[in-house]
């Protein structure tokens, strides 16, 4: 694994607990010393993954970056910017729709980009149907919030129909 701030190997792995969520930093010896001696106020302002994502963004133009940042997942609605600031994805479909942005990040963390371990016993072939369920539930929630109850009940029926097909 490379240092988040330069190209040397990361030999220090620091978990910062001062923010609202724990943040991990992977740094070389020099940058780790710098980090640890820096004022504690500075710590926690940029998250580990966010920092990684920012580092990866180097080399892209500002417009490109802004465009990628605003891209939202059609299923759960999270933007890549929101992921970058929280360090947590919104739904399984994010791995598909943010693939170009996530790929370098995952390669940086794991050194690999392909799963070779265990597979679920029964196949997840119906994944399209599943992402559809997530989207429909979100739409239903929005419909209720906007008091479009007719639409909400249509959506509820559709959700139930899909769920019943399953079982």
């Amino acid at each position: 694994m490379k240092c988040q701030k330069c190209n040397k190997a990361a030999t220090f792995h620091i978990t910062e607990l001062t923010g609202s969520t724990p943040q991990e930093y992977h740094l070389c010896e020099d940058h780790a010393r710098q980090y640890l001696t820096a004022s504690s106020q500075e710590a926690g302002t940029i998250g580990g993954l966010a920092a990684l994502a920012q580092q990866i963004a180097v080399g892209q133009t500002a417009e490109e970056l802004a465009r990628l940042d605003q891209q939202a997942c059609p299923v759960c609605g999270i933007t890549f910017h929101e992921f970058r600031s929280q360090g947590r994805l919104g739904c399984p479909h994010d791995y598909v729709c943010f693939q170009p942005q996530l790929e370098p990040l995952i390669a940086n963390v794991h050194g690999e980009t392909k799963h070779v371990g265990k597979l679920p016993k029964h196949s997840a072939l119906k994944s399209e149907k599943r992402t559809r369920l997530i989207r429909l539930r979100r739409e239903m929630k929005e419909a209720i919030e906007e008091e479009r109850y007719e639409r909400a009940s249509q959506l509820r029926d559709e959700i139930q129909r899909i769920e019943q097909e399953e079982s």
Partner: protein
Amino acid sequence: MRLDDLVQSNGEWLRGVGPEADVVISSRVRLARNLADFPFISRTTPQDRAQIEKMLRERIIDIGGEKELLYLDLSQLEKIDRQFLVERHLISREHAESQGARSVAIDGEERFSLMINEEDHLRIQVMHSGLNLQAAWEQINALDDAIEEKVTYAYHERWGYLTACPTNVGTGMRVSVMLHLPALVITRQIEKVFRSLQKINLAVRGLYGEGSQAMGDFYQISNQVTLGRTEEEIVRQVSDIVPVIVDYERQAREFLVKESHQSLHDRVSRAFGILRTAQTISSEETMHLLSSVRMGVNLGLIRDLSISAVNDLFIRTQPAHLQKLAGSELDTTERDIERARYIRRYLNKEDERGDQAGHN
């Protein structure tokens, strides 16, 4: 089974048995899993969470079978009880402190726990005492299969098991081994060990996981990489490196025995003396002294005290344990007094037992 039953019992991982138990406290494996048809936790509605909780609860109670599981709704639990579960390593700090529908299922021997609606929908963990990752992996693999029979996990052909944080994607597996390394700390070699571990992508953390300090000279070593390796490879990598560290620790202990026997014996005896007589003692000091005592027992400098008794004290002197045992809420000052009292009583009882055994 109720939560309060746990107060009087001891987790399997604290038994102080198993391979390399003088240095290796426990072996733990955890898997992160998510249901395919719900968003990850950060994007769930309260209804989603309630539904996830219900689906997984039904499935989990099912696999419990004959064995009785302790199923706890964390949103209904008092703060002190949640803290108690954290001290026991049955839930994470994050799980204890978050909001909304979330729960944990624990088996009677505390060999496994299933956290629902933690950072991921489901986190399965298995803990064994001593160095025994292979057995822990086999058990967790079977549990995972049993749960998966009825629910569909979020899985992607290329990325593997999908997790809320990309640092867990792939196998979703974290294996960690808890080590007691007092001699490496005393001989100031611990930093060197860490640096070499970090070079091979293994993380080092304190007693209570991420961000916690290395209290009582306890360290957890775990894999960082979860993608691009099989579960067996990950288990093997950690299983192969731990004996090397165990060996370093034993060499450091031998060195101390040989080169500074007197000062080592003095250190251990003083620690034991303070613990047996103190009238008020902080959690930090307790951990520090118990660490010396534990090493003293391992080196034969203290007799009539078992490793499992020392392990026991490490856990029972933690704030929530202490208050559960005392049966009342205590502030810091009261806790320090109660802690000292509890340790005195515990060690003097152990002493009597030892004496009786000696005379009979």
